[in-house]
């Protein structure tokens, strides 16, 4: 793996780490499998791209894009809470609706962003080589987002959200409005996802309506893989493991992509990735079962 392949894995991993943080909030904290992300990721890309080509400055475009992601989260929460639609189905419904919405926003399936002033441009002007500029900004954004999620989950509201996910009945009995927790949780998660989409599109050089394909798998691999490799009960460590999980997934993919040497071809990338992720999931299990056997006499 070359330096370029490695930095490529790092920056892509960092961009998708925001989706992983969102998925941590929904899947782990709220116990709400949210598939809206397949639509809110390209939504963020679409809104940012459309605003940027309309002359809005890249930072404003990126922030507005993140906020529209919150709306997508509200939509799923509405379908689930008010219309009583099963959580998975509610997310799928919002995601497929967003497909059409994204086409409407962009007015066509693809908007090119090459040679435009993006959020990464100021870093290049500061003298950061263009290869590393996205990484510097993404690292800052991811660290800020991670700490914000940590602090949020430590507040009274955040504790209530964790209780609502861990035991909704008990939480309800203690006066926590579980519905409100789901609304806020989904809004934050999809806001992060749309922000990720906006940042990724500016790095890629285009927003495309098909960008959402596979986002959910990547997010799950990051959350499950990350927390499996680094099991913990502390929130700051769990969110850290989600970020690391996202980066490790990309490194695994980069290794899979350079596996031609051992007789694998381009079309095998998906299965190689699946095997690598499965191994990452299995190693900690094996380790703990060995430890248990070794300490069995105790």
């Amino acid at each position: 793996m070359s330096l370029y392949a490695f930095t490529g894995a790092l920056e892509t991993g960092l961009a998708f780490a925001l989706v992983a943080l969102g998925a941590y909030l929904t899947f782990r904290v709220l116990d709400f499998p949210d598939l809206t992300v397949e639509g809110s990721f390209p939504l963020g890309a679409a809104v940012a791209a459309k605003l940027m080509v309309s002359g809005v400055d890249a930072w404003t475009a990126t922030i507005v894009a993140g906020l529209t992601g919150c709306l997508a989260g509200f939509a799923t929460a509405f379908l689930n809470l008010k219309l009583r639609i099963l959580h998975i189905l509610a997310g799928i419904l919002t995601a497929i609706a967003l497909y059409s919405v994204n086409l409407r926003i962009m007015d066509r399936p693809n908007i090119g962003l090459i040679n435009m002033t993006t959020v990464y441009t100021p870093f290049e002007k500061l003298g950061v080589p263009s290869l590393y500029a996205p990484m510097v900004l993404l690292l800052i954004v991811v660290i800020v987002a991670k700490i914000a999620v940590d602090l949020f989950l430590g507040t009274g509201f955040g504790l209530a959200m964790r209780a609502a996910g861990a035991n909704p009945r008990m939480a309800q009995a203690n006066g926590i409005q579980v519905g409100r927790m789901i609304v806020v949780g989904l809004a934050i998660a999809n806001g992060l996802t749309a922000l990720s989409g906006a940042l990724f599109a500016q790095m890629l050089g285009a927003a495309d309506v098909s960008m959402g394909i596979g986002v959910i798998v990547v997010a799950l691999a990051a959350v499950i893989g990350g927390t499996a490799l680094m099991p913990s009960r502390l929130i700051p460590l769990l969110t850290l493991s989600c970020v690391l999980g996202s980066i490790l997934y990309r490194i695994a993919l980069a290794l899979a992509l350079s596996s031609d040497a051992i007789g694998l071809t381009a079309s095998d990338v998906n299965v190689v990735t699946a095997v690598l992720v499965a191994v990452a999931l299995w190693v900690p299990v094996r380790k703990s079962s060995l430890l248990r056997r070794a300490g069995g006499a105790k």
Partner: protein
Amino acid sequence: MAKTLLAFTSALFCLALGASVYAADVKTMSIITMNDTPQLLEVKDGLLKGLAAHGYTEGKNLKVDFKSAQGNFGTAQQIVRQFIGEKPDVIVTITTPTSQAAVAATKEIPIIFTTVTDPLKSKLVTRLKHPGGNASGISDLVPTERQLDIVKEIVPKLKRLGLVYDPSLDNARSTVESIKALAPKMGFTTVESPAMGLNNVPSAGQALVGRVDAIFVPNDTTVYGAFESLVKVAQDAKLPIFTAERRSVQRGAVATVGFDFVDMGKRTADMVDKVFKGTKPGDMDVQYMKDLPNSLALYVNKESAEKMGVKLSPALLKRAAQVF
């Protein structure tokens, strides 16, 4: 962590060793495609055939690295990064998004893009003549007007033309826009029937039965993916289907005027050969496949035409480059 580091360093060594085996006169080409659809793989095959005709043999004086993002944008970004790290003599990008990813990522390595419909709107180049920079290539914009002429020739009483396409595809959508613009001048109206995803293709066709005189399918990988199901609907309803490329005529469409994707790959190879010989992509004009000499031909399917209730005149059959 130490183990991971060890794995990285050993992987690096393997790559370095692999690279040093090739001598200086070996040209390196990295190809990236967004999907593995038959048309795109034909372009890649044509590219390799074309390069062979120029005297480059894979494994001898040409090293080829072909990768598909399998529809995933994150993967596409990473493949592009990996290619840049390997510093090939040329990167060939198949489809619009992969071309954008490559052009956005490197200003140094020469890029030849292919099967891009609108290189200007996609921001790959800022002008078509001597585009400057490190990228040039070939557009697959279809000769829509010529294709509609054939529809009118075979279905003279055409009043309403049905359009089956996937609105999420840039190529398909821009073709539909240009058909709608041409329709009043050519004396017919259009009825759109969108098909989002392979499963919706047959129902998109059924929705047009009784409402149109003929169906036209633009260059659309979704519809072509389930084309047989659309042909069946059309044969049952005696509705002639016309398409924008050769392969689908073989699979049951009545006729098209178009280019061959293997041929398009070969024309891409001509540009790659120039890059290998030292020409900068910025000095090469962006080409439109439909305007290149001898790129267009008439293809018809006699048997399917009869099943769809239209007769092909002997004169037309004589003009055809291929009768399926």
